[in-house]
C-alpha cells in the first residue's frame, strides 16, 4: 500500500513538473487558456468520479465551482485588506497569505454546499438528484442577487496575484497564473486519483453496481454517496479558485446552465470515471469554442453572429449523443488499461 502511495505521489509530481515546464513553450494567451483548462479539469475530474463511480449525475457542478470562486474571492479580498494596515503587504507574504486563505475559504464554501447536496444525494436516485441540481443552477443568479456580499449579476472581483520579484524577469503574469492553476489543480486531482484506486473507490463501485449486495457486505450506501458528492464538490470548488485566479472575477453569469452542461460534456467525452479522459475533455471544451470562433470569423457578419457561441454547442451535443449511444467509455478507451485493480473491480 505504501509503495503504491509513493508511486502515485511521484507520478503526480512528475506530471505537475511536466505541465509547469510546458508553460515555457506557450505564449501568454495560450498560458491563459491552459490555466482555464486546468480549472475546468479539476471540476470535470470531480464530476467524472461522481458519475462514473457512483452513477449520480449532477448538473450543478458549475454552482459548486462558483461557490469555490466566491469563497476564494471574498476571503482573499478581506485578508489582503487586513494585511495592508500591518505593513506586511509587500513581498511574499503580501500575495501568499491571501492566496492560501482564499483557498481555505473556497474549500469551506464548496464543502458546505457539497455537504448539503450530498445529504440529498444520499437519499435520492437518478433523475431526482439531477433535477434538484438543475433547479440549483437555475437559482444561482437569484441567490447572487439576494445573498448580501455576492453583488448580484455584476459579481465580485478576486485580488490580482502578482508575479513574485524573484521570477519577475523570467516569466510573464499569464505564465505565473498558469503555474498557480497547475499547482491548485494538482492538489485537487491527486487525492481523487488515490481515492479512485483505493478502498473508497471500491466502495463506490460496489454501491453503484448493487446497492443491496453492498449493504449486505457492511457498506452504508448513503454515507458512500454523500461522501462521493462532498469530495467531488471540493474538486469543483478548487476549479473555481483556479478560474478566479486566472480571470480575477466571479459572476453568476459565468457559471450558468450552459457551463454546467459543458462540464458534463467534458466528462462524457473523456469517458465517465476516467481522470485522464477528464483532462482531455476539459481541454476540448475550452479550446473548441475558441477554434470555432476563429473558423467563423471570416464568414459574413449575419451568419457569423448566428453561429457564434452556438455552433460548438451543436457539435458538443452531437458528440455527447454519439459517444453515449455508440461508444460508451469515451476517449479513455483509446488508452489500454494497465492497472490490475481496475480490471478486477470494473465489470
Amino acid at each position: 500500500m505504501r509503495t503504491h502511495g509513493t508511486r502515485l505521489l511521484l507520478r503526480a509530481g512528475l506530471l505537475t513538473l511536466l505541465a509547469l515546464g510546458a508553460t515555457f513553450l506557450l505564449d501568454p494567451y495560450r498560458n491563459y487558456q491552459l490555466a482555464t483548462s486546468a480549472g475546468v479539469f479539476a471540476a470535470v475530474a470531480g464530476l467524472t468520479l461522481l458519475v462514473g463511480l457512483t452513477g449520480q449525475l449532477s448538473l450543478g457542478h458549475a454552482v459548486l465551482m462558483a461557490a469555490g470562486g466566491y469563497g476564494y474571492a471574498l476571503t482573499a479580498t478581506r485578508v489582503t485588506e487586513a494585511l495592508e494596515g500591518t505593513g506586511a503587504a509587500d513581498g511574499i507574504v503580501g500575495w501568499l497569505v491571501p492566496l492560501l486563505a482564499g483557498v481555505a475559504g473556497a474549500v469551506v464554501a464548496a464543502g458546505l454546499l457539497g455537504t448539503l447536496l450530498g445529504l440529498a444525494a444520499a437519499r435520492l436516485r437518478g433523475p431526482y438528484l439531477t433535477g434538484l441540481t438543475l433547479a440549483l443552477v437555475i437559482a444561482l443568479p437569484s441567490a447572487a442577487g439576494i445573498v448580501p456580499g455576492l453583488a448580484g449579476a455584476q459579481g465580485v472581483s478576486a485580488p490580482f496575484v502578482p508575479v513574485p520579484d524573484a521570477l519577475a524577469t523570467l516569466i510573464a503574469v499569464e505564465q505565473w497564473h498558469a503555474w498557480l492553476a497547475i499547482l491548485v489543480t494538482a492538489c485537487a486531482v491527486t487525492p481523487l486519483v488515490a481515492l479512485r484506486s483505493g478502498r473508497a473507490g471500491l466502495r463506490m463501485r460496489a454501491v453503484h453496481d448493487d446497492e443491496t449486495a453492498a449493504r449486505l457486505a457492511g457498506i452504508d450506501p448513503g454515507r458512500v454517496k454523500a461522501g462521493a458528492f462532498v469530495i467531488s464538490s471540493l474538486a469543483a470548488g478548487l476549479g473555481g479558485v483556479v478560474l478566479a485566479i486566472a480571470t480575477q472575477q466571479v459572476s453568476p453569469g459565468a457559471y450558468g446552465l450552459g457551463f454546467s452542461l459543458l462540464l458534463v460534456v467534458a466528462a462524457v467525452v473523456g469517458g465517465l470515471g476516467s481522470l485522464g479522459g477528464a483532462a482531455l475533455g476539459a481541454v476540448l471544451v475550452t479550446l473548441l469554442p475558441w477554434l470555432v470562433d476563429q473558423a467563423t470569423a471570416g464568414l459574413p457578419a449575419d451568419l457569423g453572429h448566428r453561429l457564434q457561441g452556438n455552433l460548438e454547442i451543436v457539435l458538443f451535443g452531437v458528440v455527447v449523443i454519439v459517444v453515449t449511444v455508440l461508444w460508451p467509455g469515451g476517449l479513455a478507451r483509446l488508452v489500454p488499461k494497465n492497472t490490475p485493480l481496475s480490471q478486477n473491480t470494473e465489470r
Partner: protein
Amino acid sequence: MERLVFLLSTGLARGAVLALFALSLVIVYRAARVVNFAQAAMAIVPVYVAFAVTAAGGSPWLGLATALVVGALLGAVVERGLLRLVPQDNPLPGIIVAIGLVMVLQAGLAIAFGPDHRPVHAPFSQRPFDVGGISVLSPYDLFVLIVAAVVMGGLALLFGRTSLGLQLRAAAFAPETSRLLGVRVPRMVTLGWMLSIATAALAALLLVPTGLGLDPHAADVLFVNAFAAAVVGGLDSPVGALVAGLAVGLLVSLVTGYASAAAAPLAVLVLLTAVLLVRPHGLFAAREARTA
C-alpha cells in the same frame, strides 16, 4: 387585499400552464419510466414552428394546430430514432442523451432563427379585468385557464374512458402482461411520447406571450418549475401534477409579488429540496414496493 387577489388570480393562470407542462412530464414518465430532461427544448421547437406559420400569414389557430402536430411528430422521432438506441437498464445514459439533445435543439434554433428574443403578441388582451375596483384575470389568462381545463379533461377522458387509454395505462404498468394480452407495447410507448410532447408544446405556446418573448431558452424555467411540481405531486400521478402545478404557480406568483421576481427560483428550489428530503415519491403517488 387587492394585491393579494390579483396575485392569486395571476398565479392561477400561470399555475395552469405549469400544471399542463407537469402533466406532460407525468405522461412520459408513466409511458416510458423516464424523466425527460429534454422536454423544454423539445417543447420550444414546435412553438418556433407555430410562430413561423403565423408570421407567414397563417392564422394563430393554424399555428397552434401545426405546433401540436409537430410536437407529436418530434416526440415520435426522438423516441423511435434516438432513445430506443440507448441502453435502458439504468437511467443515466438516457439522461445524458437528453442533455445532448437539449444542446443540439436549442443551439440549432439559435442558429436557424437568430439568437435574439422575438417579441410575441397574445391573441387576446393581457389587460386585467376590473371587478369592483380590483384587477383580476386578463382575457388571455382566462383563455389559458379554459384551454388548460379542456386539454386536461380531454386527457382524463382519453386515459380513463377509452380502450386506447386502457392500453396506454396497461403498457405502462405491466408491459410483459400487456404484451401477452395483445397490447402493442412499443407502439403505446411511442404514443405516450407523442401525447407528452404535444401537451408540453401547448404549455410552452401558452407561456411565451406572458414572458420576455420567444428564444430557445424560453421554456427552461418552466421546465424546472414543472419538474418541481411533478415531483411534489408524485411523478406518476396526473392529479398530483394538476394540484401541485397550481400550487407552484401560486407560490411563484406570491413570492414574485411580495418579495421579488429574483426570489422565485429560490423558493422553488427550497420547495423541491424539502419535498425530496421528506417524501421523495411525492405527496400523491402510490407507495412503491420496498427495494432494499
